[in-house]
């Protein structure tokens, strides 16, 4: 299937940012008609390599060739014109425009300068039909889910006679059915001779779709391997560069004893809390030291539950008691006051302050809790920051680097550490491991276990059932904006049963546990 001549080569690529060496002497090549996975932990340099390739960043050193001829793109526009299209993790389309327009804007079919809207819609429908999508092409893109928006972005990319298609973590917000559909499309495009560069954190997906794998670590090249010659375990070892005992530490903690933590007054007791249009009224108790997993599909109301608990959205009805005392929790400030912390899934928009340094980001929540009139002494700041950088192994371990220069996983750690510094009694983690690599993921999982052993209550929201089952004492299941079940995580509970509950909504009888 692979041609003998690569369509794209990158040789000796180096790139530095203030305080961070993002890439060092990296080589990469891509053949027509292959799916090539680019793997590495967060901060390994994957995103930087893609941005260098598409001309978002200049290279400090190194050369890129396309079809044997040296190229240097001045930006994504020029790269696209040359046949190198990118679909980003975050959908970069305009939600105010229609689906059809998002696919064709910039190259609409025209007659004497006038856009032929009928033709635009017809071609959009045809293109989406090829991807097996049946959408109303004249509806605004914003009326569709993120997953659909992602597919529309791919439709846009492949319409531009692309020879190289770069998919930068396209699956991180898709569910299994959508991923299967995406893979079908990827295979189809590969068979048409398009070279696909695929970045993901899901190892299973790599083995399902990729023909070859290139591994990066700490900005350097580890190697390029055919997928069949690289067992999954070796891949992970190459990515994190150490033997894989980290995962095992967690397994011992599985099957956690619910009865042991669930005694006395619950730390937080929620009864019939709900908000019209967001989530049906639900009841839930969380005890000190308990990890409650919240499972469910995307859009099933998981985040809405978290936002209600944190006071970020106002509830229509129901009560919340913290330590037995009725509490309002109408605003985040009240929630923080009662010892509740919330790590949003949307870390870029709702969490970190990208221009401030790691230290300043870490201190932010604690300083807010103390009030601005009582600054935290610099020495105390440095101690705290050093402690948490070490505890969460934030890289680079430099407190003065602006957070924007950190990778996604490390930004997530900074956000987590910010809440940990305030020593909350209940920490709500919304998708803390999404889009971050396996090493960081394991570290965060381990941390959750340690925190709960230390008496902190955790509400853990994740799309990955294995992760939820590994960490939780009990699992609350969301389905269609309703909390349909709360299942004790005992020997009888496994991923299949949770999935059944998600699918069927049964097990209601256990809801009062």
């Amino acid at each position, binding site marked *: 299937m692979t041609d003998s001549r690569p369509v794209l080569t990158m040789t000796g690529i180096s790139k530095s940012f203030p305080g961070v060496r993002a890439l060092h002497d990296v080589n990469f090549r891509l053949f027509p008609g292959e799916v090539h996975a680019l793997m590495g932990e967060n901060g390994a340099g994957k995103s930087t390599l893609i941005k260098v390739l598409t001309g978002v960043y200049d290279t400090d050193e190194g050369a890129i060739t396309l079809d044997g001829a040296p190229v240097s793109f001045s930006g994504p526009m020029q790269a696209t014109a040359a046949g190198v299209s990118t679909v980003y993790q975050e959908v970069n389309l305009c939600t105010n425009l229609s689906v059809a327009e998002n696919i064709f804007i910039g190259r609409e079919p025209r007659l004497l300068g006038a856009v032929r809207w009928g033709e635009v819609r017809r071609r959009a429908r045809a293109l989406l039909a090829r991807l097996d999508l049946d959408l109303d092409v004249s509806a605004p893109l914003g009326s569709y889910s993120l997953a*659909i928006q992602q597919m529309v972005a791919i439709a846009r990319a492949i319409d531009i006679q692309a020879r190289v298609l770069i998919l930068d973590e396209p699956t991180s917000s898709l*569910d299994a*059915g959508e991923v299967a559909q995406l893979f079908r499309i990827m295979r189809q495009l590969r068979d048409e001779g398009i070279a696909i560069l695929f970045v993901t954190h899901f190892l299973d997906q790599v083995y399902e779709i990729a023909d070859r794998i290139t591994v990066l670590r700490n900005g350097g090249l580890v190697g390029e391997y055919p997928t069949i010659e690289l067992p999954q375990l070796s891949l992970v070892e190459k990515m994190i560069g150490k033997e894989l005992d980290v995962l095992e530490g967690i397994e011992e903690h599985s099957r956690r004893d619910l009865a042991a933590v669930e005694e006395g007054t619950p730390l937080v007791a929620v009864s019939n809390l709900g908000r019209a249009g967001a989530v049906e009224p639900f009841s839930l108790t969380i005890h000190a030291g308990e990890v409650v997993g919240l499972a469910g599909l995307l859009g099933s109301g998981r985040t809405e539950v978290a936002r209600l608990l944190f006071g970020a959205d106002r509830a229509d009805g129901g009560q919340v008691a913290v330590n037995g005392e009725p509490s309002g929790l109408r605003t985040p400030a009240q929630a923080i006051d009662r010892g509740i912390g919330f790590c949003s899934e949307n870390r870029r928009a709702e969490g970190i302050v990208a221009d401030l340094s790691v230290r300043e980001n870490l201190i932010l929540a604690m300083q807010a809790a103390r009030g601005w009139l009582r600054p935290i002494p610099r020495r105390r700041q440095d101690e705290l920051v050093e402690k948490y950088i070490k505890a969460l192994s934030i890289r680079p371990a430099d407190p003065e680097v602006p957070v924007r220069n950190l990778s996604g996983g490390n930004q997530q750690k900074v956000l987590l550490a910010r809440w940990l510094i305030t020593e909350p009694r209940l920490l709500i983690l919304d998708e803390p491991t999404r889009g971050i690599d396996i090493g960081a993921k394991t570290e965060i999982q381990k941390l959750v276990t340690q925190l709960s052993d230390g008496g902190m209550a955790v509400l853990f929201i994740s799309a990955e059932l294995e992760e939820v089952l590994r960490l939780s004492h009990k699992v609350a299941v969301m389905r269609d904006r309703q909390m349909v079940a709360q299942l004790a995580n005992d020997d009888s509970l496994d991923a299949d049963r949770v999935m059944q509950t998600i699918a069927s909504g049964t097990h209601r009888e256990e809801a009062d546990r």
Partner: protein
Amino acid sequence: MTTGSLTAGRTRLRLPRRQIPVLATLALLLVMYGIGVSQYQAFSNVQVIFNVFIDNGFLLVVAVGMTFVILTGGIDLSVGSVVAMTAMVSASLLQQGLPAALVLVIALLIGPTLGLLMGCAIHFFDIQPFIVTLAGMFFARGMCTFISGSSIPITDGFWTRMSQERIGDPRGNFVSISVLIAFAVVVVAAYTLAYTRLGRNVHAIGGNPQSALLMGLPVGRTRIAVYTISGLCSAIGGILLSFYTLSGAPLIGVGMELDVIAAVVIGGTVLTGGSGYVFGTVLGVLVLGVIQTLITFDGSLNSWWTKIVIGGLLFAFILLQRLIGIRYK
């Protein structure tokens, strides 16, 4: 976790929510007209509507230019001063005896040139449109008084003809040539926004400039273009105003930029950009004009009531935009 087909992936019901603000403006306009007709007999005369257009033709043209700018999420505070400067330059050149055609060309070049320069400053130096166009506003206003400290009358034949020419029906209702020019501008603008790449890029930039850039759209060029267009519309507006008043006055149109912004927003264009129609802007200008007419008909009300009503309406419309949530994620 399989969910099967994606065909039903819509997360929200589709309401014509993009049209709601325009429909609300239309409803408001009809209600106000209804009030006028029921209160005052003469209000039902067609000429009342025509007069609204005659009195506000220049405002309409300027508002159309502002619609382009606001659709990209920008703002242009210089328009009122550019209108005045264009009228002043025309009056002054005519006074010095230059032929009307040449004066027209010169007057129509000044506005777009200033707009182009402001657009370049906004794009290349990444400065807030608010502050750049504020500078433009002071500059153009200063130029007015530099040309002359007092009003200059226009006696040119072409100008007076344009001012006095009536195009009407046999029953005596009429409009001025300025109204026809204003309509032409509206039609060209509506076509540009709906059917040309420039127009669509304007919408895309207003929706999400970052995405527009990554989609390979010429963001910088489009930004510069909208300020140039706004400058051109202000220049045309200035000419129309000089037809209307047959003079150039250094202090005319002070605060006009705010009326214009109010008209565009009441017409349903969202201040953050990405959503709005030229037709809505026409309605917005009409709302302003009809309020003035109602107050004139009443006779006992101070003209400042216009401002009070506009203030209330503007607030109500911004609330409306917020409530129906034009902010797609």
